[in-house]
C-alpha cells in the first residue's frame, strides 16, 4: 500500500502544477486546448493518489506489482498522449507557416512588379 506521506506529497505537487497551469493560462502563455489536456492528466493523478484502492484494483487487472508503479505508468501514458497531440499541432503549424511564407514571397514579387509597372506608366506620362 501507499504511505500517507507519499499520497500527500503527490497531491501537493499536483496541486502546485495545477496552480501553475492556471497561472500560465491567465498570462496567456498557454492555449486553453493544451491547458485542458495537462489539467486532465493532473486531475487523474490526484484522483489516483486519493483513492489508492482504485490503483490496487487496476494494478491487479494489469498485473503491475506495486500500485505506486501504477501511478507512474498511468501518468506516463497520459503524458504520451499530450506529447503526441503536440506533434500533431506542430505539424499543423508547420503547414500554416509554409503556406504563409509562400503567400508572402508571391505578394512581395507582385508588389515589386506592380511598382515597376507603375513607374513605367509614370515615365510614359512625362514623355
Amino acid at each position, binding site marked *: 500500500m501507499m504511505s500517507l506521506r507519499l499520497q500527500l506529497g503527490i497531491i501537493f505537487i499536483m496541486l502546485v502544477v495545477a496552480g501553475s497551469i492556471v497561472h500560465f493560462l491567465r498570462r496567456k502563455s498557454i492555449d486553453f486546448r493544451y491547458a485542458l489536456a495537462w489539467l486532465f492528466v493532473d486531475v487523474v493523478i490526484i484522483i489516483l493518489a486519493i483513492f489508492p484502492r482504485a490503483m490496487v484494483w487496476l494494478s491487479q487487472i494489469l498485473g503491475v506489482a506495486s500500485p505506486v508503479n501504477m501511478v507512474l505508468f498511468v501518468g506516463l501514458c497520459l503524458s504520451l498522449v499530450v506529447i503526441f497531440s503536440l506533434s500533431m499541432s506542430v505539424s499543423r503549424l508547420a503547414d500554416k*507557416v*509554409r503556406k504563409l*511564407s*509562400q*503567400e*508572402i*514571397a*508571391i505578394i*512581395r*514579387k507582385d508588389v515589386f512588379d506592380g511598382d515597376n509597372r507603375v513607374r513605367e506608366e509614370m515615365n510614359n506620362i512625362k514623355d
Partner: protein
Amino acid sequence: MKKLVIIPAFNEEGNLEKTILDIKENAPAFDYVIINDCSTDGTLAMCRRHGFSYLNLPVNLGIGGAVQTGYRYAYYHGYDIAVQFDGDGQHSASYLPEMAERLEETGSDMVIGSRFITKEGFQSSSLRRLGIRYFTFLIRLLTGKKITDPTSGMRMINRKLMEKFTEEYPKDYPEPESVVTVLSEKHRVTEMPVIMNEREEGSSSISLGNGVYYMVKVSFAMVIARMKR
C-alpha cells in the same frame, strides 16, 4: 498559352546565370521564376543584380515547399502550364517546347522528362539507379503504371495539377510520392526521353548518410499516398 518555368534554388549562385540564359535562348515562349529558398550564398544578390524574375522565401521551406511556391505563383497568375526545372545545370531548356507539345497532344496532366528511356547522357551512379528502379517497381505495384524515371526533377504539369499541388505537395523528396498521388487519382502521366547532364556545381540533396532515411521515408509516403484514395 501562358507557360512558366519554375527553378527552385538553394545556393545556386554558380549555375543560375547559365540556366536562365539557356531558358531565354532555347525556350523563349516560357516565362521563368526562380524560387530562392533562403540561400546562404550570393544567389539573391545575383538575382537582383541581373534583374532576374525571382520569388524570395522568407523562411527556408525545403525543395517541396519551394517548388510548391512556384506552382502557387503559376496558379495565381493564370499560367496554363508549369514546369519544374533544376537550376544546377542538369536540365536542358531545349526540351521544354517539345514537352509542352506532348502535354497538349497526349492530353496528359503531367509529362516527366526521363533519363532512362533512351538511356543516353548522364545516368547517375549505379547505386542511385538501383534506388530509382526500386521506385519504378513500387509505383507499378501501387498503381499498375510504369514510370521509368520517378525521381526526375524535370516535370511539366497542366493547370489541373497546379491547383492540386498548390493545395498539397510533399515537403521533402516530393517527386516519387507526388507521382503516386497523381496516378492514384487517375490523372494521366506520360514520359518523354531527355538527356540530362551531370551537375556542374553543388551536390545532390541525397547522400549516403541520409540515403536510408530517404528510401524509407519515400517508400512509406508512397504507400500512404496510395491509401488516400
